């Protein structure tokens, strides 16, 4: 597409500055069931999002229909939106950062591995899961390979491009011991195919399901609680949503007025590292601002809010490179979060707990979390901790509390940090006490 043409047409229509982004994605996925390919899918899509300044106001529009009418459509919709918006005048569009830390994260080797090899590995994964234990009676195994490319252009001449690709294998196991069914899910997301370890994945998914047999509830009270890394990441995300400057400026963040104050235990250090070379790598945001690595919380002290250009201007600071489309406006988001791990192994971490709970699954935190007050309540599963060791499984319990209080009660992390599928790298967390509901 000729984007200069777009800038010219937009200018003629009275849009003084404009920006256009195009995203392309292709994917292939395969699902197995009972040793047969049940679903096979090949996909490709593209979409364009454009925005501009008209009479000093910001407007945007997006479409997946790319033809001769695309530019006039986008221009008309930008003008319509900008004509109605009642917010204060928009920031001028960005002219560019001094330096961009571009890296190549596209792995051509992954693309070169034939699909037949990936299918063979998927079949192997399915077999391995069945072979782990006689009680495994159903398995769903899946593979997907995704490749995305994004391009950014604006009328100031800023041109940025980035592409990435990755794959994932997933296994869902159902085990039945004659009395009850238990399930578990494992997924592995990477761009480097040599890191795939099917044996380990199969073992993990089955061990996880089997360990849940014979679970019971627990007496309702406060317990020392250890959150598995992926469970803790859900709470880290909820916490980070309060560091978004827009929420702070609108007085709806838990962390308003708390910059450079202690908001959590000194064991908590959260960094955003978008420039680490992994599948989450991003070197520019949706406003064209260069991203950079930074501490958000250091030893329990809140070091920065996350800004886009508009919220940064309001606070008289620079954008932190966190601008991201949120519907029809540029909101704020983050990428590649690293939570500093501790020094103890998991066994050492739980050793001092006489009677506690290890949470390995939660359901319903999305609706059970009031991100504005920090109060939460959700369903959970896990294991009892007795005399410093993991004991019997627990199910149908509830976990409730307040987000800020919970991170103030953080006693530490284990040393075994792992990356979640959502891009947060962290270890298991020990919280002094949490409300567990049961009988």
């Amino acid at each position, binding site marked *: 597409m000729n984007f200069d043409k777009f800038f010219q047409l937009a200018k003629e229509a009275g849009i003084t500055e404009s920006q256009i982004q195009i995203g392309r994605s292709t994917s292939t996925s395969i699902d197995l069931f009972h040793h047969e390919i049940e679903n096979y899918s090949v996909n490709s899509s593209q979409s364009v999002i454009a925005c501009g300044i008209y009479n000093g106001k910001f407007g945007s529009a997006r479409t997946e229909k790319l033809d001769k009418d695309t530019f006039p459509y986008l221009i008309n919709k930008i003008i319509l939106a900008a004509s109605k918006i009642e917010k204060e005048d928009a920031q001028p569009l960005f002219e560019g950062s001094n330096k961009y830390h571009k890296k190549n994260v596209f792995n051509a080797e992954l693309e070169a591995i034939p699909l037949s090899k990936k299918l063979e590995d998927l079949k192997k994964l399915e077999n391995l899961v069945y072979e782990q234990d006689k009680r495994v009676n159903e398995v769903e195994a899946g593979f997907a390979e995704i490749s995305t490319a994004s391009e950014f252009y604006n009328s100031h001449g800023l041109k940025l491009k980035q592409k990435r690709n990755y794959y994932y294998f997933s296994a869902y196991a159902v085990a039945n011991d004659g009395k009850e*069914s238990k399930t578990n899910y494992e997924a592995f997301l990477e761009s480097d195919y040599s890191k795939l370890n099917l044996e380990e994945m199969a073992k993990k998914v089955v061990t996880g399901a089997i360990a849940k047999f014979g679970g019971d509830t627990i007496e309702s009270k406060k317990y020392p609680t250890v959150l598995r890394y992926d469970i803790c990441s859900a709470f880290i995300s909820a916490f980070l949503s309060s560091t978004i400057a827009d929420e702070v400026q609108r007085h709806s963040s838990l962390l308003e007025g708390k910059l450079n104050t202690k908001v959590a235990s000194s064991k908590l250090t959260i960094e955003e590292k978008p420039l680490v070379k992994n599948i989450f790598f991003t070197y520019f945001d949706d406003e064209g601002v260069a991203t950079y690595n930074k501490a958000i919380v250091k030893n329990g002290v809140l070091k920065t809010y996350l800004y886009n250009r508009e919220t940064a201007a309001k606070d008289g600071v620079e954008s932190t490179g966190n601008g991201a489309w949120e519907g029809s406006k540029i909101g704020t988001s983050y990428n590649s979060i690293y939570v500093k791990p501790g020094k103890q192994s998991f066994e050492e971490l739980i050793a001092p707990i006489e009677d506690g709970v290890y949470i390995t699954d939660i359901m*319903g935190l999305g609706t059970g979390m009031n991100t504005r007050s920090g109060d939460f309540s959700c369903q959970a599963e896990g294991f009892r901790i007795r005399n410093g060791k993991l004991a019997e499984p627990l199910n149908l319990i509830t976990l409730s509390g307040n987000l800020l209080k919970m991170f103030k009660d953080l006693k530490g992390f284990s040393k075994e940090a792992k990356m979640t599928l959502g891009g947060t790298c962290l270890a298991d967390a020990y919280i002094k006490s949490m409300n567990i509901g049961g009988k």
Partner: protein
Amino acid sequence: MISNALAKEVLNAALATGGDYAEIYLEQSDVESIVLDSGKIETVGTRQGYGAGIRILQKFRSVYGYTSDLSKKSLIKLATDLSASFEGERQIEVKNITKGKFKNVNPIKTHLMDVSADTRIAYLKECYEATKSVDPRIVRIQDALNFWKKNIRIYVAENENAKVFDTVEERGRLVMVAIAAGENNSIETSFEGPGASNGWEYFQSLDHKAKAIEVGKKAIALLSAKECPSGQFTVVIANGWGGVLFHEACGHPLEATATAKGLSVFSNSIGKQIASPIVSAWDDGTIENAWGSNSIDTEGVPTKKNELIRDGICVGFMVDRFNGRRLNMAPNGTARRESYKYAPTSRMSNTYIAAGKDNPEDIIKDTKLGIYVANFGGGSVEPTTGQFNFSASEAYIIRDGKICEMVKGCTLIGTGQEVLMNIDRVGNDLALGQGNCGSASGSIPVNVGQPTIRLSKITVGGRGGELK
């Protein structure tokens, strides 16, 4: 979007290697959204979706692909690529394409997209003023009107006579959020989101100002609510949106997506008792102008009123074409998808527990100690184990047959099997509530519903200690 002649070529390319069914799903969608933040127009958004999904079935195998390029070259390539995963001989050669017939269940007078931006804005400003008038402690108010229009064309080839279905889905939803700030930095949020597959007449008939006042009042009430107790209690659940419990705990496990592979707690349950004998339940995609209604599903099957549970006995599932093959059951108009980017599968539309005989006031009166859940935030379920959770956004203590103080932070957890059996009272006040359901084929609009019901016991999670 494409001609019948091209569709025939694409279907025949898809069926070249022995597929016994092929389908092209084409979509052009427009979404318009106006958002007010604290009374000021924050965004006016438009989004256009455009693409096609091609699916080929061969016995128990399914291949699916999509593209946003609807050129002949692109569609033929996609159909050929997909068909390459089968190795058989052609079974079907499409010769004719005729128009499929169905009844329109969502008649519309004033199309939403014809309503001017200024009219929508004026409506939203009335909502804002109404919420704002409630209490100065309301610190932020969000109001939005979201309108969707989808032009859909589906080609279905099961034999040499393929069918084409053209349908338009139009929906609108009003979203109102109030945020109240109280002492000690406490912040509470409340939400209302009425919507319908209907025209502007729906919004004109809605008492939007009264609803906006309710949203404000609820946020203020939450500021002084105590924490919900935890333990096993008797719980009365209000009608309407309370039906999300049935949706999560019982609806999802009754979708053929889960039952066909034996992965649901209700697999092989047809003819068996799965609920208390006072429970009957339906999934009805044909309720006129309802939020979850469509005239046809996304594989071209007309929607139906499907009976799921009769007097506690499981009598049906929601069945799509593909999973119906394993179950040996005919598709019943429940195959839905968010967009062309998803293959269709069996999903709920308007799903509810049917009205019973009890007066709702009597249900409360007959409850000595328990919790009254007036509204839920949402929830989720694991269909294989039946475990579910719901968080209540508005709940009260019931003491000596009376609704007493409000409590917050309340979660109900249990298994679908258990909760269905534990329903001991069913009211006569059936109502529906609107939501969006996310599952295998994306996020789709659904109505949940029920009359007031009582659960003899269920686990409640909260931070308020014992129930007294």
